[in-house]
């Protein structure tokens, strides 16, 4: 398993403390995550989303914004779990 996400102790620099109000995009993705992993829709688990994000290449893990990552993972899971057919979504691919 890749450990792209498993960051504790890796060399790293100064922390950017710039504040950022969530955009409408951020809020909608956040809501999707809460609802799709929630008891009502129960489409997939938080751990399935994490596992999908953890399978991303470094280019995707660090190149996408936080909510872009979540959205990409949830789109892939909706296909994997059979809620929608493959090809339904135009999922952006990372440049290699």
């Amino acid at each position, binding site marked *: 398993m890749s450990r792209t*996400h*498993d*960051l*504790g*102790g*890796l*060399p*790293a*620099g*100064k*922390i*950017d*403390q*710039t*504040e*950022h109000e*969530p*955009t409408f*995009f*951020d*809020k*909608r*993705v*956040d*809501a*999707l995550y*809460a*609802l*799709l992993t929630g008891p009502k*829709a129960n*489409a997939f688990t938080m751990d399935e989303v*994490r596992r999908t*994000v953890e399978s991303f290449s*470094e280019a995707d893990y*660090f*190149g*996408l*914004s*936080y*909510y*872009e990552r979540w*959205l*990409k993972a*949830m*789109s892939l899971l*909706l296909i994997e779990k059979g*809620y*929608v057919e493959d090809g*339904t*979504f*135009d*999922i*952006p691919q990372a440049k290699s």
Partner: protein
Amino acid sequence: MPHDHPHDHPVSRDHSEPRPAFAALLDQVLKVLDDKDILTTAQVTAQIEDMDGRTPTEGAKIIARCWDDPDYLDLARTDLQAAAGQVGIAMPAYPKFVLLDNTGDVHHVVVCTLCSCYPRPILGPPPVWYKSRNYRARVVVEPRDVLAEFGTTVPQDKKLQVVDSTADCRYLVLPERPAGSDGMTQEQLAGLVTRDSMIGVTRLNVPVT
């Protein structure tokens, strides 16, 4: 350092609007979920409104009451879900919420090195820095240096405990009540409490007027 990690990482995109391809993907996903009756637009809107109401101001009410009411403090220590409910915060049954007392002897600071676990129902979404690679990588290995970047000095004789939110608990730090806050009302006390003090990267002071 313990692990090799030679790659440079691009600057985080978390401070910007999504790229058009992702904005389009979101529209596609929302439409398909609505068409298939998995999620309606109304549910998404209601969820956004619910989350908009969850902010550090809400968490500050818990802290102020803990400082002011010993029975409530006991409850918050044993059942933070119930204590949050008593100040009007609707709480999920899962995960488990835990209060970490910062005292004269120990200072707690919270991180999620694996993703971004955070007490969202109490504080709302985490700040960008909490989710950043650099915070997650560094705070478990050089916590005093990281706190110094936030302007916080923990005395050498005080124990610093880093809490890594790895599984099923979400943590709220109870900051030390600042000196000079005697006699304040709970509303005034809540006004002193900052988001960062409830994560543990800062301590609180009564502003000099």
